């Protein structure tokens, strides 16, 4: 691996692991001075992950599966841990599953946060996590044939479209409630926002007893696409399209994963430009969320006002990149567009205007009597649940954890700026909203800092060659939290494997716990507060289990109920 690594941050974690589990560690490989991959014995994988997770303040970032049969006759499993205790670094726990076995011990019983990652590996590679409490499909659609695992290198062409096995959704929703409950399904189509997702709320009267959801309606097969049709630089533009709101964060995470894997030194100026654009993206995204919060509490003029002001952030992005969305600025090794004096002046002017406008709007929002009391103590994210499931971004910061990739693992231009972490201790919708509000001002200040001390020099480094089978992590703090990418280069000028984990992926599993104990009218507010690229639903069907009747309520009705909280549509 990278032989130039001298200063090894995180060696004590490996030492700790060796002490606790004397014979588990087989190999350690350093990708950068703050990234290490330790290979452990497959049967000790759960112990190794949980030892680092709970013993050394590790947080689970992503679980990566990789079909390495052509390299070493095994499937690779990579559990990526972000170490946020004393020595801040990334430790990747790797275990090899022999190709004739196709089973591995599930880590989920010890570290609950692994549940989605392991379900995904089961879908995509057909490896069975033994002991996984939830063996339902996660990523693949309901009409996908059994036994076809898209990411196995030998399973299928990336263009193969098998015939649908059924025309009906047949996902089994889980209800852990003790008594009888009524089912409230929400989605997958909805009006005011974004991704499709289907929710089932299990209610007793007005109270949500449990909730379950089916996501991945928009699974398209990007990771397979990156391995087959695209070269390294093309994937930076594909990564822009992972998410239409925080796509640039993905593009930076992907580019830096390849740069880390190959030891490419990105010019300082390019690093600063990347950070600056990430902050621009955060501005528009946080304002979008604040607008939606206004909408959910029935303060629609606030919603419109936030969108009015948000257009200034869009103008800023358009001026700096040429596009309002999908910036398409990254290449491996640097960026494609400089910030010249004229743009600098305009940016500073827009930043000053935004600061004033947002300040005024926030004062307005906080002075609105139906805001504070409506969102306080709603949608509680318990600190214990947060610790177990490793959520990210303003969601976990609203529960008092100081997790921010920009500070914990300073990347791109964040090494040279002054930045604190805002947290809230209410664990509720209010705390999350206030964290986002504070971060808008941070972003504005960061843009100014970055423009004040922009390093000189070129913006791209083209002096490198691609080497096969190198892998590393790349990470960014997107508006919704940490985005993390794991890339392995191939021998044909294409990626061998690209695993992209969006921030909301880490946040969905805790939503169930946040919904429990609240009322139906709080549901859109809580879902909106994780800022999930999803905010509400088109219609609600109420199924009364006891009476075996069902009744469809228009979406507007449930949203109205969220705002007014009287005349329940369930009656």
């Amino acid at each position, binding site marked *: 691996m990278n032989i130039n690594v001298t200063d090894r941050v995180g060696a004590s974690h490996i030492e700790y692991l060796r002490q606790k589990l004397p014979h588990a560690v087989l190999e350690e490989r350093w990708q950068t001075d703050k990234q290490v991959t330790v290979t452990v014995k497959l049967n000790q994988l759960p112990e190794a992950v949980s030892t680092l997770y709970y013993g050394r303040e590790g947080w689970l970032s992503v679980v990566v599966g990789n079909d390495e049969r052509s390299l070493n006759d095994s499937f690779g499993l990579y559990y990526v841990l972000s170490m946020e205790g004393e020595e801040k670094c990334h430790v990747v726990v790797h275990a090899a599953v022999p190709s004739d076995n196709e089973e591995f011990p599930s880590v989920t019983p010890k570290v609950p946060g692994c549940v989605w990652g392991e379900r995904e590996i089961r879908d995509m590679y057909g490896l069975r996590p033994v002991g996984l409490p939830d063996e339902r499909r996660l990523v693949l659609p309901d009409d996908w044939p059994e036994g076809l695992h898209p990411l196995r290198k030998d399973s299928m062409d990336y263009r193969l479209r098998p015939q649908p096995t059924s025309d009906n*959704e047949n996902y089994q929703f889980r209800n852990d409630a003790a008594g009888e409950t009524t089912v409230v399904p929400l989605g997958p*189509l909805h009006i005011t926002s974004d991704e*499709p997702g289907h929710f089932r709320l299990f209610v007793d009267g007005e109270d949500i007893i449990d909730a379950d959801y089916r996501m991945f309606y928009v699974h*398209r097969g990007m990771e397979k696409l990156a391995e087959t049709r695209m070269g390294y630089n093309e994937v930076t533009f594909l990564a822009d399209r*992972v998410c239409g709101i925080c796509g640039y964060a993905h593009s930076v995470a992907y580019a830096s994963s390849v740069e880390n894997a190959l030891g490419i030194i990105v010019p300082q100026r390019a690093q600063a430009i990347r950070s600056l654009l990430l902050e621009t993206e955060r501005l528009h995204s946080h304002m979008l969320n604040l607008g939606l919060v206004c909408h959910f509490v029935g303060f629609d003029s606030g919603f419109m006002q936030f969108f009015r002001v948000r257009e200034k952030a869009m103008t800023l992005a358009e001026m700096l990149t040429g596009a309002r*969305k999908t910036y398409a600025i990254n290449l491996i090794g640097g960026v494609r567009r*400089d910030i010249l004096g004229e743009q600098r002046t305009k940016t500073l002017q827009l930043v000053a205007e935004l600061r004033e406008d947002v300040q005024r709007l926030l004062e307005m929002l906080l002075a609105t009597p139906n805001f504070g009391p409506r969102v306080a103590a709603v949608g509680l994210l318990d600190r214990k649940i947060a610790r177990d499931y490793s959520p990210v971004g303003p969601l976990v910061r609203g529960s008092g954890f100081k997790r921010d990739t920009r500070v914990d693992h300073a990347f791109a231009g964040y090494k040279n700026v002054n930045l604190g972490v805002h947290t809230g201790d209410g664990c509720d919708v209010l705390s999350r909203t206030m964290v986002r509000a504070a971060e808008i001002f941070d972003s504005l200040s960061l843009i100014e800092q970055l423009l004040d001390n922009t390093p000189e020099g070129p913006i791209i480094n083209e002096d490198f060659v691609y080497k096969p089978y190198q892998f590393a992590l790349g990470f960014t703090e997107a508006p919704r939290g940490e985005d993390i990418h794991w890339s392995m280069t191939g021998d044909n000028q294409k990626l061998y494997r690209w695993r992209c984990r969006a921030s909301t992926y880490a946040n969905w599993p805790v939503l169930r716990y946040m919904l429990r104990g609240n009322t139906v009218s709080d549901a859109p507010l809580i879902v909106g507060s994780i800022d999930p690229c999803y905010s509400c639903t088109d*219609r609600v069907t109420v199924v009364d289990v006891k009476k075996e009747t069902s009744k469809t309520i*228009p979406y507007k009705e449930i949203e109205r109920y969220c705002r007014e909280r009287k005349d329940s549509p369930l009656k």
Partner: protein
Amino acid sequence: MKMDTPADIKRMKSSLLSNIRRSAYVYRVDCGGCNGCEIEIFAAITPIFDAERFGIKVVASPRHADILLFTGAVTRAMRMPALRAYEAAPDPKIVVSYGACGCSGGIFHDLYCVWGGTDQVVPVDVYIPGCPPTPPATIYGFAVALGLLDQKLKAKTHIEGEGEQAGIAHPAVPYNVRIHIEREARRMAGYRQGRDIADRFLGMLQIPGDLPLQQRVETFAAAETDPRLAEIYLQIGETLQHPELRP
């Protein structure tokens, strides 16, 4: 799998446009988009662009809709929900396919979990291209859908004359120097701005004069008010000292 429009519905659709006489209601169907399109539709209906001033209103249910707006490449999981939304909207309805992915499947057009663009599932009347389309393009697309404007089509065919040749930019500068300057400018400032900077620098080189190169570059850089541009000019000038570039 694709649905067809019967003839009587086609006739009703043309009369809908002339007889609508009220606001047009739009229902959004996200068939697997990345949110980029959704967020630009949001921008189009909020105060700065304000599509509602043209009577275009986004509604909450397909049953209220005159126009269905499909975004994103149709994924396997969204095929049935999208068809249900299409069937729920009353006839005659206008279908708009929005964004690069909606129009053709975009970057995802041939993937295993995608059926392609909107027109692979339902008949489409108007396409709004872009990744994502800007709010002005969105409003323009709605106007086309409502028959207020025609689709903008511009075609220009150039027929090459006899002996016609495209001129070389900056012919007085030797080829290898020109290429070098363009590369260096792009390395320093990127593709878009690097081109402009190289043009300006080459323009300076073409002005006749007998001062040594270094001095000319320094004067040129000193006259520039933007410090970053001055830095780039000096950097280009410095690399021109390379022995291979000497005449």
